[in-house]
């Protein structure tokens, strides 16, 4: 890689208030445009790692830089601008269930507007059009005016991806995005993420429980155990035996 990494962890530690070690001496770089999959047992620290990148969790020591800028000092507006360029996808979709698909998708754009405009729903025609195109990317245009809670799980996750696209993100963080989906829908959602990675050059970081999926989609796999990186290889070098080892207890 001749280019600068988009995200870089330097000696990052995270200890929760109750003393639990969340992350232990994390050191690695994520090159721009990579499809990185993070694997590890439940409680290994995958969600913690992901959430330190958009500062939903604070780290205890060390430094995380994004596009060469340390992110730990961001506050208020600068923190919101950081979050704007990092999309996030959740296991439970986290849509606003009583609102329409359109409103959910547009809600991904609010950081481009002053609060009073978001509150009064004063989205520009261009952004309403952008919402439709975001839904086109996930093949759900016909659901524009449907209420989110009337959609299947897979459809809800696609709406969540469309919402993220409205941010115009450089990075997408996905925390077990397919854990509550059936195998077929899983492929659809993972394919969409892969396409955003390849066509738009968005850096994608996905936490997964399935080793098979990790091998199918990743450019690189990082393994966590008890908050520490215990594995880090490009996909070409990954072997089945390696992965079973990550999932062995003790």
């Amino acid at each position: 890689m001749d280019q600068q990494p988009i995200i870089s962890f330097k000696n990052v530690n995270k200890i929760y208030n109750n003393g639990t070690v969340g992350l232990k001496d994390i050191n690695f770089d994520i090159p721009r445009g990579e499809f990185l999959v993070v694997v590890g047992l439940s409680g290994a620290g995958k969600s913690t790692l992901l959430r330190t990148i958009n500062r939903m969790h604070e780290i205890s020591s060390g430094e995380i830089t994004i596009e060469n800028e340390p992110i730990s000092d961001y506050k208020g507006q600068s923190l919101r601008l950081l979050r704007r360029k990092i999309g996030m996808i959740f296991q439970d979709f986290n849509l606003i269930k009583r609102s329409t698909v359109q409103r959910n998708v547009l809600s991904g754009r609010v950081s481009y507007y002053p609060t009073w405009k978001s509150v009064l729903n004063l989205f520009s025609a261009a952004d309403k059009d952008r919402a439709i195109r975001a839904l086109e990317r996930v093949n759900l245009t016909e659901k524009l005016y449907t209420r989110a809670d009337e959609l299947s799980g897979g459809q809800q996750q696609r709406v969540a991806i469309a919402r993220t696209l409205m941010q115009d993100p450089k990075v997408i963080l996905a925390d077990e995005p397919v854990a509550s989906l059936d195998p077929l829908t899983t492929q659809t959602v993972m394919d969409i993420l892969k396409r955003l990675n390849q066509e738009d050059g968005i850096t994608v970081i996905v936490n997964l429980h399935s080793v098979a999926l990790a091998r199918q989609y990743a450019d690189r796999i990082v393994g966590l155990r008890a908050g520490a990186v215990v594995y880090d290889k490009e996909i070409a070098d990954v072997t089945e035996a390696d992965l079973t080892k990550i999932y062995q207890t003790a």
Partner: protein
Amino acid sequence: MTTPEIPQRSWSQRWHVKGVGWTALLVALLVGSSKMTGVDVGMFFSNFDQFTNLLVRMSQPAWSYVPIIIQPLYETIQMAILGTTIGTVFAVPFAVLAASNLVHNQWLRGIIRLILDLVRTLPDLLLAAIFVAIFGIGSTAGVITLAIFSFGMISKLFYEVIETIDMGPLEAMESVGASKVTIIWYAVLPQIMNQFVSYFLYTLEINVRASTVLGYLGAGGIGVFLQRSLSEFDYNKTAVIILATLVVVMVIDGVSNHLRRVLL
């Protein structure tokens, strides 16, 4: 430990010691407190004929009285709507600040809750008396009393609703880079809206009834007429006033049910 054992319920689980204990305690408290305050339940039944006597005297409502009470009834409804609305407007920001899932600053939350507890402790009759003294006899005193009463009640009901919401959408909006107000508007409001509306209407209903009592102190509305009819022993007029109030309460209840169905 060769065969898997079914866990045994403990002695206290088997005999429901907790449930029985709580029931016994409640009964004891009830009996004890009625003893101490000198409530004589027997008297309620022995003097029951007084009550039936009153009902008989109210049994021929003076329908000719209806046109006279339309205006004060209308004023009562206006007072209740105005008081409830003003109270709600102030209650919403307080409810947000008192909700433990939205405000993590314990000090701020503690102070807000203390204020709310204080407001709810003030008896509304006392408030009415004070405001009648300040603003004179009339509906202004009534509206302010109802506003303060509604504020105390609604802010508590509202923050308890807010504390039960699903936090997922808030997390998503936060990750999008939304400001606090935007997060509340987009992710909190839709989750609580219909409960807010139904609590608002419930408070409105209580206020319609409360304002009949407030009228006693000269705080305007139908209560003035209720008091007059009672002091003149004109129970047939009292009956009309009660029936009219019942109609208003039923209408509010109907609207409330309808709105809840529509908003769900």
